[in-house]
């Protein structure tokens, strides 16, 4: 996450989470962890789902969709030449529900559309999309057939007659002007690629009474594939939508199971991990090379790949997600292996198992998180502690107060370690009330420097990584990982954040019941991430909506 978005992120996390903090304050929440006997009546409040609406494709979804629809051999412009993703809320998926397309983005999508359309109509590829033999340059029947098939994939629903007429009209008029069928068809395809119906996912729902809406089959297909695969529905899923298979529980479950077994599901798991852990900032990791001699441009992206690989591994194997805080298994390339000082795997990002006495607490001990939540020349117990609070425990930290002196003492003989220096924050009550909640956790990770390298000493002094997380003492990072593993808030927080990412909004009070059901389902499924994904798809919160307000608030 860039520093700017760090700033922009905070209030939203705080706001979203504060809704749930409120929830936790309610008496009912104390019993959340008690499994409910099968068959027991659901004591939950009635669902008030979130408003439906448009979600803009992320750069990854755009790229994945083009590859799925046109072929992996199509060169898609890099993300730097597409409208950039935004994560001002802390989750790209949530921002996808509020972002639009800028003037620059319109021009970029236009350029990309012609680039992709030209590749698709290249003599080597056009047969994939044009199965008829055009009888003339402006053969409308043949153009229409091709555009109808492509349109179904690109819009994730059949084109309306009007839309198909327009695309065919563009294609034939262009073909006539350029005297070539395929050159003309490029323009028809470019229209589809620039349409808001492609660039935005239209997930509007239809009225089902009581002021609520349900998503129809094609809308569900789109929601499912973008959540589970981070890409567009395949032909089979669109077939399920057309046949009505997604309209009932059994059909939905069958489709979800098929999708989770598909290799593309790993893309969905990785996207979840990427957003959950806020790893976008790893592209522009700022570290002082005179302090961290192992920094190089590939460190950030490699470290991210490691963490995503571990989460994907948990997803594939169904391993208990709590063990993300304790696992010694990871996936490294040569660079990372040297930074962890372990034998590199033969193949990049092959499986590596840390020694039993490794100091690393699962993904919390990954270079990705330790380096990202730190400063350019030092660690930051505050940033690391805030990460644990907000991303692992969903326990929000308010914005720092303004108008106060934020300095901490310089290192000195009296205060050689950051632990001692930070104590100042905690002694001042208006700082300490928040800093104690962050720094106390973050200091548990002080045995890892600002780049995530293990260290025993800081300025010649042995590192004290002991601490306390809400009454649970730990001696070092491994024990901190175990404390988080054992904290019921951790799995609740995973549930909540996956739900945010799946549905594209910060959960509302009206979704408490859905979230409680999901938490229980996660627990009873042995904290399997893939089972949680399936539960979310099957949940009413994912399938239902209320209409967006018609008028300005």
């Amino acid at each position, binding site marked *: 996450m860039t520093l700017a978005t760090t700033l922009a992120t905070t209030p939203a996390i705080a706001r979203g989470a504060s809704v749930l903090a409120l929830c936790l304050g309610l008496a009912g929440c104390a019993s959340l962890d008690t499994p409910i006997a099968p068959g027991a009546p659901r004591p939950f409040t009635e669902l008030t789902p979130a408003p439906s609406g448009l979600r803009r494709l992320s750069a990854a979804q755009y790229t994945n969709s083009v590859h799925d629809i046109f072929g992996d051999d199509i060169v898609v412009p890099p993300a730097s030449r597409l409208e950039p993703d935004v994560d001002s809320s802390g989750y790209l998926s949530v921002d996808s529900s509020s972002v639009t397309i800028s003037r620059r983005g319109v021009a970029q999508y236009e350029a990309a559309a012609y680039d992709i359309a030209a590749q698709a109509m290249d003599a080597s590829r056009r047969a994939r999309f044009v199965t008829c033999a055009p009888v003339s340059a402006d053969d409308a029947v043949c153009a229409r057939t091709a555009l109808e098939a492509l349109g179904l994939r690109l819009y994730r629903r059949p084109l309306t007659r009007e839309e198909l007429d327009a695309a065919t009209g563009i294609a034939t008029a262009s073909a006539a002007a350029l005297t070539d069928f395929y050159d003309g068809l490029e323009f028809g395809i470019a229209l589809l690629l620039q349409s808001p119906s492609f660039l935005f996912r239209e997930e509007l729902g239809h009225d089902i009474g009581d002021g609520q809406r349900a998503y129809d089959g094609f809308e569900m297909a789109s929601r499912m594939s973008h959540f589970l695969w981070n890409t567009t529905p395949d032909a089979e899923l669109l077939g399920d939508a057309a046949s009505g298979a997604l309209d009932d529980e059994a059909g939905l479950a069958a489709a979800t199971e098929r999708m989770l077994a598909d290799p593309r599901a790993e893309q969905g798991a990785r996207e979840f991990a990427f957003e959950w852990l806020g790893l976008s900032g790893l592209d522009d990791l700022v570290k002082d090379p*005179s302090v961290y*001699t192992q*920094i*190089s441009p590939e460190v950030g992206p490699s470290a991210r790949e490691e963490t995503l690989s571990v989460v994907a591994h948990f997803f594939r194997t169904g391993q208990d997600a709590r063990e993300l805080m304790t696992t010694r298994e990871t996936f490294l390339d*040569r660079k990372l292996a040297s930074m962890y000082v*372990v*034998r590199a795997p033969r193949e990049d990002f092959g499986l590596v198992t840390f020694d039993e006495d490794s100091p690393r607490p699962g993904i919390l001990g990954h270079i990705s998180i330790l380096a990202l939540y730190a400063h350019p020349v030092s660690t930051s117990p505050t940033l690391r502690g805030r990460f644990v609070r907000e991303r692992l425990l969903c326990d929000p930290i308010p914005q720092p107060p303004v108008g106060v002196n934020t300095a901490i003492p310089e290192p000195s003989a009296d205060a050689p370690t950051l632990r001692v220096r930070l104590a100042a924050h905690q002694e001042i009550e208006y700082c300490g009330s928040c800093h104690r909640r962050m720094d106390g956790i973050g200091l548990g990770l002080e045995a890892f420097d600002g780049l995530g390298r293990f260290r025993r000493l800081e300025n010649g002094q042995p590192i004290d990584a002991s601490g306390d997380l809400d009454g649970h003492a730990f001696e070092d990072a491994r024990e901190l990982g175990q404390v988080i593993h054992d904290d019921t808030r951790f799995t609740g927080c995973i549930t909540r954040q996956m739900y945010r990412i799946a549905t594209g909004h910060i959960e509302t009070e009206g979704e408490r019941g859905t979230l409680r059901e999901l938490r229980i389902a996660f627990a009873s499924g042995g904290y399997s991430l893939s089972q949680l994904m399936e539960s979310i798809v099957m949940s009413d919160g994912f399938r239902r909506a209320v209409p967006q307000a018609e008028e300005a608030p």
Partner: protein
Amino acid sequence: MSRAGRGGLAVVALAASLAGCMANGPGGTDDCVATQPIRSSLVRRLGFARQDPDGISEGFDLDGRVSDRGDATACGRADFVTPEGVPGIDNQIARLVPLVEAQAGGVSLDDILKTAINNGQMLLAIELEDLDDERNDSCVTVQLRPLMGTPSLGTDGLIEIGQTFDAREGGVVSRIEGARLADGVLQAGPAELSLPVTILDASFILHVHDALIRIVIDEEGNFTGAFGGGIDIAEMITVSQSLNVPSALMGAVMLLLNNNADLDRDPGTNLCGQISATLLFESVPAFVYD
């Protein structure tokens, strides 16, 4: 560690006397059974121990004699004294190295070695086997093994720690058994060492006779240390020729070698056949693919 190493090669505590080599380390075990995996360390800095003015140099007392110019056994070559004042140090090559560098137009042998190490031409692992204690162990086997691979360099221009390499196929391996580790200082030898050297366009095996090794292991597992021993004059000349040393310089090198030889005196000719030498090194944890 890397910052401290930025200057010249510094060898910590080389002054530990050879006598210490014979003592059992406190708390060390005597059995040669390994309880820890082989520990590999990659030499990332290597250079000749240089002489300071006034006859001071790092090194070893290889012949057990404190020689002055009148000591015929050492072919009249006076020994050095370590910076800590230990006398009898045999490192006659220290007299020769700067002269050769000057004769060759100001090249730096250490730089040539550094380039060879950094570009992966000359990767040498020092490996400790039979370890059962990190600091004290009276029975350790030291192995020198050439590796291959493309090392990654840090922003300080040194090979980064913790990298994994392949063993060099057909590389010459030297093993010294019975080394002793006491308080984190390992001493080994005397033994015959074969150092595989690849510099410039040449590769050769440098044989070091009656070699002694001393290694200081720090808390982070980094090694600083030295090899010392006798190098055959004849072999050095052969090696120099293989390096395409210009003939004018070659004559000077031969003269310098012969004039500074101090070991392996032939009682018949009264000429010394070997020159004493000390190489200082710094090495960092590394891994070798099985």
